[in-house]
């Protein structure tokens, strides 16, 4: 019973996070490549984070019904912001010597993005993803609370309405478990993908720097 609700929330959060990641990457790269988009979009991006979920949620429900669409929109709005912001920072941080090297050998803008700026921003991407992964589960709960027929948020509302304290605590335990799951999945993915950094400070780095 609780298991199916937990699974529903898990899928909702997972898809929300994945979409948020993809949209975050796209938005960051667009803004980075076309700098004047930054000025055009910056107020809009901040605005998207200012409107409270409990105000936006009901509106989205009215517009898109009670299915997945309004919930995913909500989650994407929560997730993409920290991801896009951190990638955007990382894209600008690429080492100047590598930038100069690519310029001298005549690399195109696209090559510079692909070979230098994007890989250089990966460590930043993961720090944004960690923040998003921490928020995604509790945001999914809010979305389900506002209108759903399954998921921990729905279960929580049910138990709350019945003044069922053990039931409420039970759902809190589920939420915490899921949050940990997401966070550590990101940490493990980061370790698997970013392998080029020296493991410890004791590593010798040669005389070149």
């Amino acid at each position, binding site marked *: 019973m609780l298991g199916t609700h937990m699974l529903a929330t898990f899928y909702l959060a997972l898809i929300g996070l994945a979409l948020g990641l993809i949209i975050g990457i796209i938005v960051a790269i667009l803004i980075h490549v076309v700098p004047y988009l930054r000025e055009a979009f910056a107020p809009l991006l901040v605005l998207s984070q200012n409107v409270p979920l409990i105000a936006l949620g009901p509106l989205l429900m009215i517009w898109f019904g009670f299915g997945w669409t309004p919930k995913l929109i909500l989650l994407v709005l929560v997730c993409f912001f920290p991801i896009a912001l951190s990638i955007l920072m990382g894209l600008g941080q690429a*080492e100047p*010597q*590598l930038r*100069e*090297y690519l*310029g*001298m*050998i*005549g*690399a195109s803008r696209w*090559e510079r993005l692909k*070979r*230098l700026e994007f*890989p*250089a921003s*990966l460590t930043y991407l993961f720090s944004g993803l960690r923040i998003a992964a921490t928020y995604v589960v509790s945001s999914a709960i809010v979305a389900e609370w506002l209108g759903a027929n399954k998921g921990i948020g729905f279960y929580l509302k049910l138990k709350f309405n019945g003044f069922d304290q053990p039931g409420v605590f039970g759902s809190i335990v589920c939420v915490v478990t899921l949050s940990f799951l997401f966070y550590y999945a990101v940490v493990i993915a980061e370790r698997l993908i*970013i*392998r*080029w*950094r*020296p493991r410890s400070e004791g*590593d*010798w*780095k*040669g*005389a*070149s*720097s």
Partner: protein
Amino acid sequence: MRSVGSKLELIGINKAYRRGKEQVPVLNNIHLQVHAGEFVTLIGPSGSGKSTLFRLIGGVERPDQGRILVDGNDVTGQRGLISYMPQQAALFPWLSVEDNISSALVTTGTTKVEAKQQAANWLERIHLGGVAKEYPHVLSGGMQMRVSFLRALLMRRNVMCLDEPFAALDALTRADMQRWLLDLWEADRRSVLFVTHSIEEALMLSDRIYVLSSAPATILREIVVPFERPRRADVWKDPAFVQLRLEVLGLLGSK
């Protein structure tokens, strides 16, 4: 192997940068040539605009006046004609040593499979086969420079530009690297434009030397280095070597 180099000519190059309201001249009427398969060195005090000269040749910037020719064709402001070895090794930290080289080859149109094969073979040949799959940060400074040089050598471009590649190395590694570079270059004879601060290095490696003045840079003298190739390791004992060294030292000191 036959020479795969091209002739590079700079004709009457002038370049100034704007600093506030003033125009600060950096390069003043620079004429120079690198013949096909020739090793030419630029030597001059720091801040004499050598890096600017490279940026012009690389097409990253345009000269205010003057033309750049490769094999007689005007290529002023055109990019993608040279291969380049910067002062720091500038290897991509997220690529393995082998991928650092092969990805550069892919830029010049080699297929991925062939580029990988070529990179692996060459790394084996320069005794770095054992670290081909490692990330660059585990290599010593000297090894990183070898990889960086190989990357520039294997990119089949008309002219190789080497910008003080050994400046950051200690003296022993540096002497080693000069020997190593000469051996590889003499087997293949690409056109090379080399920048250094070290007079010994310039005399050791090059066919001709252009001595630059401090900013705004002009060419003070062109020196033909008379020693035969392949160059002997103890060429520095030659009285002519000592004589030329003093001559360049005098030129650099006089300004």
